[in-house]
């Protein structure tokens, strides 16, 4: 008898057997016999379904074990691959003389003051920092590009190592409507013989010359103001920190040497 039958019902069916032996009552049980045959057919189907279910459970358990084993194989292969890749990348870094620094590099760069804003070679600097982009890049690119993958000129925020790079009159900020400053360079920095191309640059010292006014500063708030509204800020800070061209040049050189990672 299947489980769905309650104890009370089972007892009644057993009692029928007793009464069949005790009295000749078969003629009264035509409906009961028909019902019992129907029950027996269903018990056969129930048994078959149970066997199918047991088989499926075994298959699910086997698949789960196989899934677990393959997952472990994948994880192991990934770990082995990571070790191999680390080894290859170490070799590539050594062969290409790639280096690492915990502190930003410092370089010099110049801007022009035009239409009330500060401009680099190709674009406006509305604030004293810039993240480089490349017109030829796609998202996820390693910017700035190296090994002549773009340009000329190659992408990146440019800065030079030495004030001697600039023509006479530039290093001391003697020319009008110009600014010269020290930028910190971070992220990926491509070093060249005379300068750098960087992923990110921030201005940390500035000498600016607009009209007859000049300002020399390394205060972050003043640099911020000079980039956001150069004309207003130069008027407000007029002649602040002003020094001779030689002193301006020395000020920038001192700033460039600060916090250099050796």
């Amino acid at each position, binding site marked *: 008898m299947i489980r769905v039958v309650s104890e009370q019902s089972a007892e009644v069916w057993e009692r029928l057997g007793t009464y069949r032996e005790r009295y000749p009552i078969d003629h009264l049980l035509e409906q009961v016999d028909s019902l019992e045959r129907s029950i027996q057919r269903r018990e056969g189907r129930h048994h078959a379904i149970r066997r199918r279910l047991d088989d499926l459970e075994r298959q699910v358990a086997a698949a789960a074990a196989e899934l677990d084993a393959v997952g472990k194989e994948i994880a192991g292969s990934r770990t082995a691959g990571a070790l191999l890749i680390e080894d290859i990348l170490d070799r590539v870094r050594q062969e290409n003389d790639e280096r*690492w*620094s915990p*502190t*930003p*590099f410092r370089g010099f760069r110049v801007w022009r003051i035009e239409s009330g804003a500060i401009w680099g070679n190709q674009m406006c600097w509305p604030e004293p920092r810039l993240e480089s982009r490349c017109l030829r890049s796609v998202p996820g690119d390693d910017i700035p590009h190296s090994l002549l993958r773009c340009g000329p000129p190659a992408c990146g925020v440019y800065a*030079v190592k030495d004030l001697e790079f600039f023509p006479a009159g530039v290093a001391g900020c003697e020319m009008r409507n110009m600014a010269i400053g020290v930028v910190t360079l971070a992220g*990926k*920095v491509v070093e060249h*013989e005379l300068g750098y191309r*960087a992923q990110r640059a921030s201005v940390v010292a500035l000498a600016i010359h607009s009209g007859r006014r000049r300002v020399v500063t390394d205060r972050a708030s003043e640099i911020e103001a000079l980039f956001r509204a150069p004309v207003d800020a130069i008027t407000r800070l007029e002649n602040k920190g002003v020094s001779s061209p030689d002193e301006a040049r020395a000020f920038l050189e001192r700033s460039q040497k600060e916090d250099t990672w050796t």
Partner: protein
Amino acid sequence: MDIGKELRVIVVEEEEVLTEPIVVEEERPSVDANKE
């Protein structure tokens, strides 16, 4: 701007600067320890 031949790549990873002091709490004796 011609800055010469490309020499190498330098990866500059700026260190994070802690802006708040680290507070070390004093270890307090337990109630049971006080009883003893």
